[in-house]
């Protein structure tokens, strides 16, 4: 029997079910597996998209242990997909780390038979080239998200003696309803140009969301999975050029700018150089009559004007001195949108040609990814059009 069949009739708690992966997981647990699904959500409104399915809604919060006890009670499996998405870095980390700890405690109390934790490939120190598997060193450049996910993963594996825990480490997850590698990519390409690091020759270990969900079904049910971590990636190793190129084709525009890793890093450095507030503000005010009128109408604006009229030469505020300089300053409408700058860790991630190996998941779980980039992007495009992210 495979993953889906083993989940029939099982009581499953899904966290993060109002998000990208968790929503798809909950949907397929119900439709394909026939599992009895309960979802944890902070608000009722967020569950609207799930209401087409017979899922039970447990209102709660990963940072509220009592609500987790109630949510986990009577559940046989806990599939943990939630991550901190709102608030400050500190608040997001609290959800990722403390939230995971709280959920582990609740799962232990509820006596669940499996705790599946969704981690990420970024817990590893991604090499610039070669291959990556589960034996690779954890660590690498410090980044709030990666640090939190590393700590959460360590926490989870620390429970292995008391609780059957399994960790999946997905790579670049995309597909319908994707945020980072879906909506955000489309939005960035629509509004800015983006550096194509090393001409897009870096390897994008792309993973269509349904392949990940299939792997999660297997990891949640396999007798060989407790205590293990599994990298999960797709059937191919496309390049970032191919990945971003797919989104550019959907939009019908070319917005990537090929550049070397070094130039991409230099561009980031330059973009961090900040100008002074006052000259920038003055330039903006002189150039925009509407903004100027608005500012001068405020209490402070009137005060400044009264003082200035005494100090500055007569006629300073005469309209002819303040001709509309918008066109002068901005010049003609820019032919190209601004070039976005990627953080150094992102540049390195995009430059790496390391291929993620999924032999362990293949061998122990029988995982076999099915969605080639072309297939997955095809479905993503249909979704994006439906969602209104592309012209009809």
């Amino acid at each position, binding site marked *: 029997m495979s993953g889906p069949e083993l989940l029939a009739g099982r009581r499953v708690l899904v966290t993060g079910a109002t998000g990208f992966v968790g929503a798809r997981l909950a949907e397929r647990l*119900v*439709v394909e597996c026939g599992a009895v699904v309960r979802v944890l959500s902070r608000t*009722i409104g967020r569950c*609207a998209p799930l*209401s*087409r399915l017979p899922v039970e809604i447990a209102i709660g919060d990963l940072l509220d242990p009592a609500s987790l006890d109630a949510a986990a009670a009577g559940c046989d499996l806990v599939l943990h997909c939630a991550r901190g998405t709102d608030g400050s870095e500190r608040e997001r980390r609290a959800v990722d780390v403390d939230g995971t700890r709280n959920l582990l405690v609740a799962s232990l109390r509820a006596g669940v038979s499996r705790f599946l934790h969704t981690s990420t490939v970024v817990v590893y120190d991604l090499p610039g080239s070669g291959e990556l598997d589960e034996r690779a060193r954890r660590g690498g450049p410090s980044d709030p998200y990666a640090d939190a996910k590393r700590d959460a993963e360590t926490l989870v594996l620390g429970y292995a003696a008391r609780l059957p825990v399994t960790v999946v480490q997905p790579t670049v997850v995309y597909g319908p309803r994707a945020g980072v590698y879906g909506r955000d990519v489309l939005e960035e390409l629509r509004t800015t140009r983006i550096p194509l690091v090393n001409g897009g020759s870096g390897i994008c270990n792309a993973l269509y969301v349904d392949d990940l969900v299939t792997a999660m079904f297997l990891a949640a049910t396999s007798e060989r999975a407790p205590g293990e971590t599994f990298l999960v990636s797709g059937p191919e190793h496309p390049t970032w050029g191919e990945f971003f190129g797919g989104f550019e084709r959907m939009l019908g525009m070319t917005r990537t700018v090929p550049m070397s890793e070094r130039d991409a890093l230099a561009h980031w450095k330059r973009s961090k150089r900040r100008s002074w507030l006052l000259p920038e503000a003055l330039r903006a005010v002189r150039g925009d009559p509407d903004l100027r009128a608005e500012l001068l109408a405020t209490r402070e604006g009137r005060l400044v004007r009264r003082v200035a009229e005494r100090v500055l030469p007569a006629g300073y505020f005469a309209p002819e001195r303040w001709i509309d300089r918008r066109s002068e300053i901005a010049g003609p409408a820019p032919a190209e949108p601004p070039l976005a700058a990627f953080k150094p860790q992102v540049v390195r991630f995009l430059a790496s040609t390391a291929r993620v190996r999924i032999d362990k998941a293949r061998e122990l779980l029988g995982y076999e990814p099915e969605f080639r980039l072309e297939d997955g992007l095809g479905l993503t495009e249909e979704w994006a059009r439906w969602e*209104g992210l592309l012209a009809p």
Partner: protein
Amino acid sequence: MKRLRLGIVGCGAVTERYHLPAVAASADVELVALVDPVRERAAALAQEHGATRALASHTDLPGVVDVAIVAAPNHLHAPIATELAQAGVHVLVEKPLARTVAECDEISSAARASGVVVAVGHDFRHFPVAQLARGLLADQVLGPVQAADLQQSAGGRWPYASTYVFSREQSGGGVLLDFGVHMLDLLSWWLGDLSVRAYADDTVAGVETECELALDTGSGAAVTMGLTRLRPMRDTTIVRCERGTLEIGIFEPAVIRLTLRDGSTLAGDAHDPAFASAPMRTVFGRQLSDFVRAVRLGEEPLVPIREGRRVVDLVERCYAVRTPLRRPWDWPEAYSGIRSVHERT
């Protein structure tokens, strides 16, 4: 004139946000009781709004109130409205009037027997744009209607206070019954009675979050409709008439756009200063005034019971001919048209 003593049954989001402010601003009614099975919720709102009683059941209302607003979950509309009507209490029932036509008829017979007024909370009729559209379309100012298309997203930011709305048992349906009845009521009000040709929705043993309808007007004009809780939509209704086309946005955008056959256009909002400064308070205030007028004068309210029943009947007919609405990336349909890697190699 003496104020009517009013009770509200159900202390969820719509009561807190819209009914209570409308009641507070009204010189026609006096709030005396709030009812909710969660007594603390009723008590907290009662204290805040100066109601003398917080009750756990509507059965304690007769004798205490003259009129009541029923804003309980859908499955309780019929029993509560029926019992209140039997006891001689006039009721304004939130939309949908009930989950089924049979339930609507229960309320209807009770109201007929006791002679009370039952008004239905299709508040969208009080939006200025909706009233202007009614004037233009019901009088056929642009000639007979040839076709209409409505695309509307629903309730993305509604602050639900309970999960009943996502339970088929309690709500009776999803986006069509919960929200679509507003649009079906407007279309019926503007274009006359409609009939159902086809219907599809996306539910899998839950309640629909997206649906598509094909309807016909009495004169045979095709009306298409799309409703969703999942994504942004155009959020307007386009009505093509013989002498021109109207595009109507009830809210966000509140707009009415007229395009004549020669292509010339006129666009704007229906002028209404009260609405412009406080839209929802104005709409719910007018709904309440209309209800009070009907009770005082023994007249029909703007949305009488048979028109509340009319849209529930349409919804029931839709559900009866339902076909599944599937998207290419749905599961396992996602695989159709895609051969797996193994089959290819």
